[in-house]
Every structure is written in C-alpha cells, then in structure tokens.
C-alpha cells in the first residue's frame, strides 16, 4: 500500500464520520471555508508550477500530478455530496416544524370560530 492509498482511506473514513454526526453549525462552516481557501491556494500554485504538482504526487507514490488531481477531486466531490445531504436533512426538519405550526394554528382558528359561532347563537336565543 502506498502512502497515498492510506491517505485516501483516511479521507473516506473522515467522510463517513462527517456523514453520520460530527461537525455542526458554525465550526463546520469555518472548516469548510478554510478548506476552500487552501484549495484555491493549492490550485494557483499548481497552475503556476505544474512540476510542483508532479513532485507532490511523486512524494505520495503517484506517477503524475494529473492523477493526484483526480483523486483529490473525487474526495472533494464526495465531501460535497455528503454536506449537501446533511444540509437538506436540516432544512427538512425546519420545514416539518413550520408545517406543524401552521397545521396546529389552523386547527386552533377553526375551533375558536366554532366556539364563538356556537356562543353567539346561544346569545341570540337567550335574547
């Protein structure tokens, strides 16, 4: 097993952990932003010095810089997918609470209408 294979496995494990229940809220956002900045920096360096990418790849036991780029992209895509699924789950939970509040509010309104209707009818009879 090359060093990079080991790192790939680590990455997959990290994704799996994130997908279950790890980072929440603000810290998760901050880490995402740090990764985005690092990725941008790495991209600029790789464009300016393509041979640097191959050097890094060789260090990890990979022949070409382009291959390294592919592997890292796959990890990135998976991370994005997991983050999206989790964001949708949170959004769904908020929709559920909103819809429940609306449903209960409507039920209350209908009941209030019925009771005021009944009491006004009774007032009419007694008058």
């Amino acid at each position, binding site marked *: 097993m090359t060093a990079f294979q080991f790192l790939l496995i680590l990455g997959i494990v990290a994704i799996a952990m994130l*997908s*279950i*229940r790890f980072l929440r809220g603000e810290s998760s956002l901050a880490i995402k932003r740090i990764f985005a900045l690092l990725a941008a920096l790495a991209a600029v360096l790789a464009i300016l010095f393509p041979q640097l990418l191959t050097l890094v790849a060789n260090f990890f036991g990979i022949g070409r810089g382009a291959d390294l780029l592919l592997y890292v992209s796959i990890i990135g895509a998976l991370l994005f997918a997991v983050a999206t699924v989790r964001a949708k*789950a949170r959004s*769904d*939970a908020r*929709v*559920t*609470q909103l*819809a*429940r*509040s*609306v*449903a*209960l*509010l*409507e*039920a*209350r309104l209908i*009941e*209030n209408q019925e*009771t005021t209707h*009944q009491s006004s009818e009774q007032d009419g009879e007694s008058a």
Partner: protein
Amino acid sequence: MTVVPAEPPTHEATTSGTPASKANIWVVIPLYNEATVIGGVIEGLLPTFSNVVCIDDGSSDGSGEVARDAGAHIVSHPINLGQGAALQTGFDYALERGAEFVVTFDADGQHRVADAAAMVERARNEDLAIVFGSRFLDDRTNPGMLKKLVLKTAVTVTNWTTKTHLTDAHNGLRVIRRDALSRIQLKQDRMAHGTEIIAQLGLTKLPYAEEPVEVLYTDYSKAKGQSLLNSVNILIDLIIR
C-alpha cells in the same frame, strides 16, 4: 418550536356527555390517503373514545373530509411530512387540549378498539406511563413468515439500540400517558419513528408494559403494509440522522 396559545381551548362542551374517565383520552390517527377505510375506523372508535383527532398528512383523496364527516377532529398538514411527523403533530395537539392519555391508532383498520380500551385500563390500573401493543405475545395474529422475519429483525435492532425488552417494535397501537408524552420529540419524519418513539420513551425511565393485541391483516392493510425494502429504509434512517 410549537406556538402555545395563552389559553388553550378546552373541550368541556364536547366531552361533558361522556364518562369522565374517557374525557381526557385522545386517539391520535396519522392519516394519509385512506379515504375508503378511515370513516369506518372512526365510527368504530367514537362509541368508546369521544376524542379522536386525525392528522391529515397532505392526503390527495379527500381523507380529511371523510374523517371530519365521521366525527373526528382534523389537523391538516399543508404538505406531506410522513407518519412520524404526523404522530408528533397529534401529540402536540392532544397535549394542548389537556390529554391525560394518548392512544396511537392506525388509519387502515388493522387495530381493534377493544384492545385499545384494554390498554388504557391497564395503564390506569397498573400506573404505567406507556403500554405498547404487541402482536407476538399470543397466537391470534398470523403475519406470515416474511413479515414476521422483518418485524423480528426490526425489534431486535431496536432492543439493542434502545436497551428495552420488547417483542414488537413497529406496532401502531400504543397508549402513552401525559408525562411520557411531554418528553417525546419525534425527529424521524418517516417510518423509523417506531424505533425512535421507543428510544425516547426508554430514556424517560417511566414504567412500561406490553399488551397482547391482535392485528387484523385485511387485504387492504396487506396491500399497504411495510415491505422488505421499507425495512431497509427504517434501518438506514436510524443510522444516519
């Protein structure tokens, strides 16, 4: 968060004619596209339980109107949210109206009203916070081999993860007392709420028991029942949340 009104509406007017012991029991029925059977289910319940609330979970077949005409209270989800979400809405509704006990009941007519009444009696007599219905405590119910395997797998996983000792995890017939009810907040909108409700009730450490009940497998409920694929969803919903 649920909006709680300053003065919850009381139901003295509608419950004054019934025995006081039944006045503070609410039957909660999650309702989704069961227009052909829900009327009969409600008519079967009303002589025994005067307070029946159906949570119409965005039905497209007019189930809500049928249930209202049959004499049930209706709470309508503006969109379809799932059975677990409907149950939680029903719990909030019943608590708001001062329910002492809530009976959860399926809309498809697979439960017996007599079983529900017996479970409420038992909760009262034995001072139990929760009574779960179980179809595996006697031999009245015959679910068939495959369904039995699925249900037994589900309950085994549930017992592992929740440290309870039950024989039937996905039975829709339950009796829950107010103190237990107020500590439940179901987050599983879809079918995994069966396990979630047990997990949350287990955490309350309140006394519970299982009551043998009969599940009526009509052709209708068979056609709508949980398939093997659905139990895969239940397991994955429990792991990823």
